[in-house]
C-alpha cells in the first residue's frame, strides 16, 4: 500500500509540473476556453462515479455514484461542447479570410 502510495504521489507531482508547463503557454486570448475545457477534463471524476454506480446491489453507495455520474456527465458533455462552440468563433470564416 505504501509503495503504491509513493507511486501515485509521484504521478501527482509530475502531472502538476506538466500542467504548469503546458498551461503557462496558453495565450490570454484563450483563457476562457481553457477554463471551460479544463473544466470538462475535471469531469474525469466520472470514472470513479461509474465504478461506484455500477455495483451489483443497489445501495446508498451506488445511489451516490449514480448522482455523481449525472453531475460529472453534465460537466464532461457540456464542457467539451461549449469549448468547441467558443473555439469555432475564434476561427470563423472571417478570421480566416483576414489572415
Amino acid at each position, binding site marked *: 500500500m505504501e509503495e503504491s502510495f509513493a507511486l501515485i504521489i509521484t504521478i501527482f507531482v509530475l502531472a502538476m509540473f506538466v*500542467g504548469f508547463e503546458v498551461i503557462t503557454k496558453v495565450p490570454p486570448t484563450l*483563457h476562457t476556453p481553457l*477554463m471551460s475545457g479544463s473544466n470538462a477534463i*475535471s469531469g474525469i471524476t466520472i470514472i470513479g462515479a461509474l465504478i461506484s454506480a455500477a*455495483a451489483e446491489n443497489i445501495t446508498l453507495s451506488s445511489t451516490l455514484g449514480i448522482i455523481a455520474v449525472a453531475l*460529472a456527465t453534465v460537466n464532461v458533455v457540456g464542457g467539451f461542447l461549449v469549448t468547441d*462552440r467558443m473555439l469555432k*468563433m475564434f476561427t470563423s470564416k472571417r478570421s480566416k479570410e483576414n489572415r
Partner: protein
Amino acid sequence: MTASWIGFAYLLASALFILGMKRLGSPRTAPAGNRMAAVGMLIAIVATLFHEEIVRFEGIVAGATVGALIGAIAAQRVKMTAMPQMVATFNGLGGGASALVAGAELIRLAEQGVAPSPFVSVPIVLGTLIGAVTFTGSFVAFAKLQELISGKPTVFPLQHLLNLVLGLGLLGLGGALILQPEELRLFWTILGLAGLLGVLLVIPIGGADMPVVISLLNSYSGLAACATGFVIQNHALIIGGSLVGASGIILTQIMCRAMNRSLANVLFGGFGATTTRTGAGPASATGPVKSGSAEDAAAILDAARSVIIVPGYGLAVAQAQHVVRELGDRLIQRGINVKYAIHPVAGRMPGHMNVLLAEADVPYELLIEMEEINPSFPHTDVALVIGANDVTNPSARDDPSSEIYGMPILEVDRARTVMVCKRSLNPGFAGVDNPLFTLPQTMMLFGDGKKMMEEVLRAINEI
C-alpha cells in the same frame, strides 16, 4: 485490481489530455486540441465500462443520459456573456461529483466491513471537503454573477472568526473520520459543514472579484478530482485533476496580478464593502468635463490614422460588440489602423472579453493584450474607450493614495485624443473616481454604448 489494458487506456487518455491542452496554445490548433481531450475522455470512460466491478448498467445509463442532455442543452443555449456563470456551475458540479465519489467509496468500504487505511481515508476526507466547498461556493458565485443575489460583499461581525472555527472544526471532524472510518455520521456532518463553509467563504467577495473566485474554484474542482483519484488509486483521475488544478492556480495568479491584489486580500478583504459609492451625476468628478456628440466623434475618428478601441464589460452589457466591430471595420476600410486593447480583467472571467469580441467576428489578430499594446498609446491618434472604467484609470499608475494604486492599466491617457463612451460619470466597480474623464484631451460621449456607437457609425458613413 484493474486489468492492465485498462491501465494503458488511462495512460492514452492522460496523454490526450496533455496534448489537447498543449494545442490550446494557438487559436488555430485549439479546436483540434479540445477534440483530442474529448476523445481521451471517451477512451477513459469506455475502458472503465469494462472494469470488473461494473456489473449493473441501468443506473449509469440513467445518470449519464440525464447529465448529457442537460450538458448539451446548456452548452448550446448559453450566451457568451453568461459564460462565467456556466463555468462556475460546471466547476460546482465537478466538485460535487468528486465529493460524492469519495463518500460512495467510504460507504462501500463500510458496507463491506473493510476498514480503510489512512492512505485511503485521508484523501476521502480531502475530496469530500474540497468537493463540497467547490459545490456550494460555485453556486454562490453563480448567484452573484447572475445577480440573483447582490454582487456587493456580504459581511457581518466575527465573520472571519466563524470561518476559522468552522475550518478548524472540519479538520477535527476529518481527523475523527480517519480514526473511525465506519462512523458514517461523521462523513455526512463533514459534507454539510463543508458546504456551509463554501457559502460563507464566497459571500464576502464582491462581484468585481468573481474572475479570481471562478479561477480558484476551477482549481479546486481539479484538486477534488485528484483527491478522489487517490481514493480509488486511479492514475487518469490524478493526472486529469492535476492539470485542471494547475490551470486554475495559474489563472488565479494572473487575475490577482491584473488587479494588483493578493489572493488573501481578495478572499478576506471584503473589498468595496466599506467604500460608499457616490451617486449619479458629475458631482463625483472634479474639474471641467468636455462632452461631445456622435458627429464630433465621427469627425475626429475619420481624421485619425490610428485608433485603439478599448472595450470593457459595459460594452457587453450594452450588447454593443457587433456595432463596435462594424465601426472598426468601417475605419479599417478607410485606411485607419485599428486595434483592440484587452485588459486581463476586462470581462467577468479570464479571457472573457476575447470570447465576446470573437463572437462578434472581430479577428483575434486584432485583439492585443495589455503589456503588448501599452507602448503604442503615445503614438495613437484616438483611444476609444467603451464601457471600461477602472482598467483605464490613470490614478492606478500616478496616485499612491488611490485605492487601486498599483493595478496595471491600459494607458489610454497617453493617446492624443481619448474618447470615453459611458452612461454617466459614476465611478466603476471599485468605486474610485477616474481623472481620465477630466483630462484636456478627453471627450466624453454620454449615452448607452450601443446607441452611441450606432450614431457614430451613421455619422461616419455620412462623411
